[in-house]
């Protein structure tokens, strides 16, 4: 299993800055914006994007964390990953433009769950999606509004996103591994 690096720490930093600009551009400002990171690695990414927006706009949008564990359509994962990481949405969703943030967009099922979850908390005005990596192979009609990098992959590959807050380093790598596809996002 050899890892192939596809994004360095600097590339990630630049992508995040670009995405933060795109988000503000699409919203024509920061009014009504709220960032929601999907557990687990979407959360530190959301924090970084919020910090970047604050850097160039002077305003920091509210950041929440969303755990989609209870919204998954595949309970067989419970046995292996039963731990729940927590949902915290410290703002009113009603009428907000929520930008969901995740590290990798793959089949789209995670995003569908995330939308279901969000709607249980309130009625956002709009939901957008920003991801660091789009690796293709969508199984649902879901599209990201903002993408850090498009990376064509095969189904046998796994995309590893490392963020300093959790993994000590910033990096995106691809590993080739045969076997189960439990990481189907």
């Amino acid at each position, binding site marked *: 299993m050899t890892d192939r690096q596809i994004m360095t720490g600097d590339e990630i930093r630049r992508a995040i800055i670009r995405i933060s600009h795109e988000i503000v551009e699409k919203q024509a400002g920061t009014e009504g914006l709220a960032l929601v990171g999907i557990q687990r690695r979407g959360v530190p990414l959301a924090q970084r994007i919020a910090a970047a927006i604050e850097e160039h706009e002077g305003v920091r949008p509210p950041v929440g964390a969303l755990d989609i564990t209870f919204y998954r*359509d595949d309970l067989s994962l*419970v046995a292996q990953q039963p731990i729940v990481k927590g949902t915290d949405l410290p703002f009113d969703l009603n009428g907000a433009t929520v930008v969901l943030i995740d590290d990798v967009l793959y089949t789209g099922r995670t995003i569908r769950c995330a939308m279901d979850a969000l709607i249980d908390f309130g009625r956002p005005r709009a939901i957008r999606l920003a991801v660091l990596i789009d690796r293709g192979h969508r199984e649902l009609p879901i599209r990201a509004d903002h993408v850090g990098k498009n990376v064509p992959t095969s189904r046998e590959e796994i995309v590893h996103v490392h963020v300093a807050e959790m993994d000590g380093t910033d990096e995106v790598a691809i590993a080739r591994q045969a076997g189960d596809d439990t990481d189907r996002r």
Partner: protein
Amino acid sequence: MSAQAGAGAAQAARKDAAPTQDVAWHHRHVLDVDVLTWPEIELIMRTAEEMGGILARPIRKVPALNGRRVTTLFYEASTRTRVSFETAARNLSADVVSIATATSSVTKGESLVDTIRTLEALGAEILIMRHSVSGAPYLAAQVFSGHVLNGGDGWHAHPTQALLDLYTMRQHVPGGDLRGRKVVIVGDVLHSRVARSNIWSLTAAGADLWLCGPATLLRGLDRWAAAWEGGKVPGHGRFHVTSDVAAAIRDADVVMALRIQRERMQSGLLPSLREYAARFGINAERVSRARPEAIVMHPGPMNEGVEIAPDVAASGRSVVTEQVSNGVAIRMALLYLLAGSHDGTVPGAAR
């Protein structure tokens, strides 16, 4: 609950460093607490905490068990527990069917095995059972291809009650750690499945457990305590059995009262309920001998004036209503863990 709004990386890291991150849930049934390891119990506690979070939301529902069929099969009448289980199942978006045996074909003499086979043919996936004969859910587990959750069997076990009791206690002791904390259970221990399951869970938690009641209602428990002397059972400490209620309650952190049934008087085990209340009832005077911050618990329903005095039941120490709401969270946690425990091969699962 997580507190990440505006927080830095440090908090995220701490949360992610949860010690039992790698505990997997592999039990197909929950029949008693005795086979659960401590990490598994902690997993249930943490999952219940998340479920508690869901109960605090405006929409108290998640689709985790969407389309799954949960059937309650209660051979013993019990509205409270049954409604608690049903609520838990509905909060997870499961479809719930309830069999009230008084009106079902069980009264026509249908055997337990036949009833379960019929329910399975009707699509039941998770069976929540309460039965008056000890061991009945083990028979169910043998003939049912789905999941069995024991809602109480005879005198033997009531795992969800013990778990919600543990959950409640942890919320009221410093650090949520019961090690060394004195917990006393007073009442008809002999006939109590709540007591038996609590013995397993509280000794696993390292609590200083005392069982107390009149000698006729403690029969056999001393033998059990003696067998566990010296920490012989791996993962479970010893416990005390005594009729001396003053010694049992002294400096206790938790006082749990068990229901005394009128039948005990009639079968010659107690002279009268009045005498029980006088000698063993949890009244204000007795409770004052416990720690100042001690809580009072009761699995319900309460016989106020017998095992627990009305003023104690209503006092600030009483956490009985918390036990009830924690019960829903614990039951949601167990249903969630059970539903995901079988690699998706549960028959009829919506996929």
